[in-house]
């Protein structure tokens, strides 16, 4: 680090600050960013749960019933509650940021961001409804 460098005439002695491991606690928006990134852990968690569910499904009705019973445990309920919040956070940030990455031009004019974000939400709604219908209809 620079503190043990001695100044000599005409040679720069720059001070380099080291970025702290905890940089993301220094600013609200940084913390938000890290939270956003950490949603991926919850996404992965639910993917694993789904894999487990699929496995149980294959093992037969008993195994599946057992699986469903496990989901009722307070531990899982709590975990899923938290996971749900993070997954929602993921969806919202994802949809809101998509327009920055995806530029659509219609007749030479850029489609405004809110239209693209709006489309995302629309697709979200339709997809969710479709899934719910498939799972709930009988």
């Amino acid at each position, binding site marked *: 680090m620079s503190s043990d460098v001695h100044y000599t005439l005409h040679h720069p002695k720059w001070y380099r600050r080291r*970025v702290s*491991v905890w940089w*993301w606690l220094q600013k609200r928006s940084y913390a938000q960013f*890290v939270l956003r*990134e*950490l*949603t*991926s*852990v919850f*996404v*992965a968690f*639910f*993917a*694993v*749960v*789904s*894999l487990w*569910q*699929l*496995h149980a*499904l*294959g093992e*037969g*009705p008993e195994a*599946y*019933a057992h699986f*469903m019973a496990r*989901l*009722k445990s307070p531990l*899982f*309920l709590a975990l*899923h*509650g938290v*996971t*749900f919040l993070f*997954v*929602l956070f*993921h*969806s919202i940030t*994802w*949809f809101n940021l998509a327009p920055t990455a995806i530029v659509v031009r219609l007749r030479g004019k850029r489609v405004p961001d809110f239209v693209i974000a709006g489309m995302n939400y629309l*697709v*979200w709604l339709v*997809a*969710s409804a479709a*899934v*719910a219908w*498939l*799972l*709930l209809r*009988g």
Partner: protein
Amino acid sequence: MTGGKSPFLWTLFSAGGTVAALLFPIHLFLTGLAFPLGWLDAPSHESLQDLVRHPLARLYLFVLISLPLFHWAHRFRYTLYDGLSLKHLAPLIVVVCYGGALLGTAMVVYTLWNLP
């Protein structure tokens, strides 16, 4: 080919992120909260099995589980790099993250293959 594996991994990350954003909330809400808490009636084992018999449903499940795992792998990798300043452990982190996602994907394939 430019950019080594990065564009590929990033595409998986994005695709996974989109799948998770679109589909996870509803699945999670139903399976993780609404059914266990009895707000809604869970579908029976039988009806589910009927549903997943269709090849399209299997494809759907494959996409639903595997891609978000890659989404996680990518994001988590960088979170470890940056959030915990662990870049010096990069090789290990890469193996754990993408390895995990690959393993998960293999298991999905195996499970789907063996479904009746």
